[in-house]
């Protein structure tokens, strides 16, 4: 999968990032080398009060996603993950059209490839419809940027798939922690005309102590099936290590616990086959990058 498009390609990104393309099991360097995993750093267009340990890093930018994106840009992730949840009626009830302005401004604030996600955990009954409307608008307005947009879910995938297909974007396919569901959603997206290298599979990340084992096993099974020749299991996988930063254990935990929670879960996600790891804490981004740097990757 290629995310982002440079000017000659019709976009405005400074470079493109490639994700996926694994040919052997993760870290089976004795059988062959896989491409280097992609590290994404997250920007939220609005957040519930951030835990204090994150405020240390993001205090000045929490209410300004554009400044936040500039800060994240300086931390040099491979990919910027802009999450737009203000469109939920239970959050800010911002109109999807209005929320486009944030995407536009963030695209100008960073030249890194961009991932744009809507409401990842729908609670309100209108959340899914809002997601669809928002993602369709994003796809149309930023045609040519080759974004990664989502979530597409088994309940609502058609609009995203059609909009991504028509405007040259990639799709994040999110299911429960179930390998068959993930494969089924891929089938549905492929029927809509998307190719597998334009789908990133998100089997839902559980934090440490909150179901991470289901995530890891689902990812392992998906990757094994893909390598064994199941065509519909050949998409790149994404792992949201940032889920670990919002657990209760960290609310009153020792300082330093938060980034290490995120980083150790990221390591476990990489071992299970993650091609993209999405993170939020600058320190864990740095540590996970160091970890990845110790290993050999295809193409250096």
């Amino acid at each position, binding site marked *: 999968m290629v995310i982002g498009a440079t000017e000659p390609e019709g976009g405005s990104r400074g470079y493109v990032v490639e994700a996926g393309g694994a040919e052997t099991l993760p*870290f*089976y*360097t*004795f059988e062959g080398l896989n491409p280097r995993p992609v590290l994404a750093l997250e920007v939220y267009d609005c957040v519930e009060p951030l835990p204090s340990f994150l405020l240390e890093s993001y205090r000045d930018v929490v209410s300004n996603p554009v400044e936040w994106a500039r800060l994240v840009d300086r931390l040099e992730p491979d990919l910027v993950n802009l999450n737009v949840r203000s469109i939920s009626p239970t959050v800010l009830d911002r109109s999807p059209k209005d929320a486009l302005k944030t995407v536009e401004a963030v695209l100008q604030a960073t030249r890194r490839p961009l991932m744009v996600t809507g409401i990842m*955990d729908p*609670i*309100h*009954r209108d959340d899914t419809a809002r997601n669809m409307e928002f993602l369709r608008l994003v796809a149309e307005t930023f045609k040519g940027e080759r974004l990664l947009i989502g979530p597409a879910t088994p309940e609502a995938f058609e609009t995203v798939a059609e909009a991504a297909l028509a405007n040259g974007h990639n799709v994040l396919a999110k299911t*429960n922690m179930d390998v068959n569901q993930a494969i089924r959603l891929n089938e549905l997206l492929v029927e809509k005309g998307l190719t597998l290298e334009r789908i990133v599979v998100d089997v839902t990340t559980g934090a*440490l*102590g*909150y*179901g*991470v*084992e*289901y995530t*890891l*096993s689902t990812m*392992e*099974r998906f990757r*094994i099936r893909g390598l064994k020749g199941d065509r519909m299991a050949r998409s790149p996988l994404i792992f949201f290590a940032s889920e670990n930063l919002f657990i*209760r*254990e960290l609310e009153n*935990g*020792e*300082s*330093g*616990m938060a980034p*290490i*929670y995120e*980083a*150790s*879960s990221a*390591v*476990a996600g990489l*071992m*299970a086959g993650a091609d993209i790891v999405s993170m939020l804490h600058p320190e864990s981004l740095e*540590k996970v990058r160091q*970890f990845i740097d*110790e*290993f*050999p990757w295809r193409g250096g």
Partner: protein
Amino acid sequence: MAKSLSPLEVYNLLPKTNCGKCGEKNCLSFATRLVNLEVEVERCTPLVEEAQYKENYVKLKNLLKPPVKEVLIVRGDRVVRIGGEYVMYRHELTYRRPTAIAIDVSDDMSRELIAERVKQVEEFGYPYIGKQLKLDLIAVRSVTGDPARFSEVVKTVLDNTSLPLVLCSLDPEVLKAGLAEMSGDKPLLYAATKDNWRRMAELALAYDCPLVVSAPNDPTMLKSLVKTMLECGLEDLVLDPGTMGGEGLPDTLVNFTMIRKAVFRAGDELLGFPLLGAPIAVWLGGGRALDKKWEECYLAGMLIVRYADILIMHSLDGWVLLPLVMLRDNIYTDPRKPVSVEPGLYKIGQPDETSPVMFTTNFALTYYTVSSDIQSAKIDSYLLVVDTEGLSVESAVAGRKLTADRVAEALKESGVEKLVKHRYLIIPGRASRLSGEIEEATGWTVLVGPLDSSGIPKFLDEKWYKPKLWEGGAQPK
């Protein structure tokens, strides 16, 4: 390996008398549970006790033997079991013996420091879904090379904890001095190498202790040492393929992975022993302590997911250890059953007819989180646990395992309507989209609770106690 065994194959070796002494209805169902690793074969007492079945018992033990041998480290009545694994991936069956974590003390530390570290290890505990996440062992390391000093330190450790031990020195004389302090116990001895193997083998045999065979980054040597040790008559071996941090990470991972692959994919019996990882290795050489702790943590995490059965570590900080014990517990959870609690009505505190009625799902993590939040706020209440097949609220709503009809059914079966005089049901915030349907299905008035159960005390204060909702009594819709 057990996962490819058929229950019939096992059944044929059982007495087939359906005597029921094992607690099962018949031998076939016992066979099924054996194949699923849910029971020990010794539960069939006739098989073990009666001479006529002796041959079958031996055959069955052999048939059910895990490809990775189980090794016991014993101190008094405390036993740490490592290995005993049947599969390479947890989804193929389940992992069985959680990676044991040993924290080191060395014989150049002061008596006070040793006592303090040992106490910290012993007291480390984190409550998690109804259990305590703990550390398992103390690794006593000789760095002075002095047998007298080692025996003194072992004694100090023994005086301060009842945890089982790993005794570490490459000098058999030093280990012997330590062993002399612990007669009858079976500490793990670290380690036999290509240079000391003969005397280490003698020592392990003489004291009947499990022994680590060490050949850092040299799998060929490791295998040849194992062969030699087996020929010496040793059975309880643990393998140390070498743990290296920094640029040694790829080799470390390759060695651990290739050994397990050889066992499970090529049936290599010589490598079918528990694996020892030593994240403590990152402390060799200079550098900032903070960086070492980070490195030790992710190295340990990497080895927990990639086959280590026992780890020797140095960091004792909660922030390093907590994510690791959590990861370990998660990875070793049986993937075949959702972690769930018994559905039904739970009383918290001393509820009466004016107490709030709340519901949650039977996913253990959800249940324990919610109930401990209510308990710690000392709220007398009824907590109805609805059977969602072990799913959390959010997943259960999405997957239609939590529906208005299920809630109505659970509410009716619980009999709570006879216990309270009101008809208000507090539902989880994440089930808010079901509120209308639940009102219709139950006839109760629904109050949508907070998204996170930590908000329950505040919620009840504002929405329940201040308005004294129950005073209206029954309010059928």
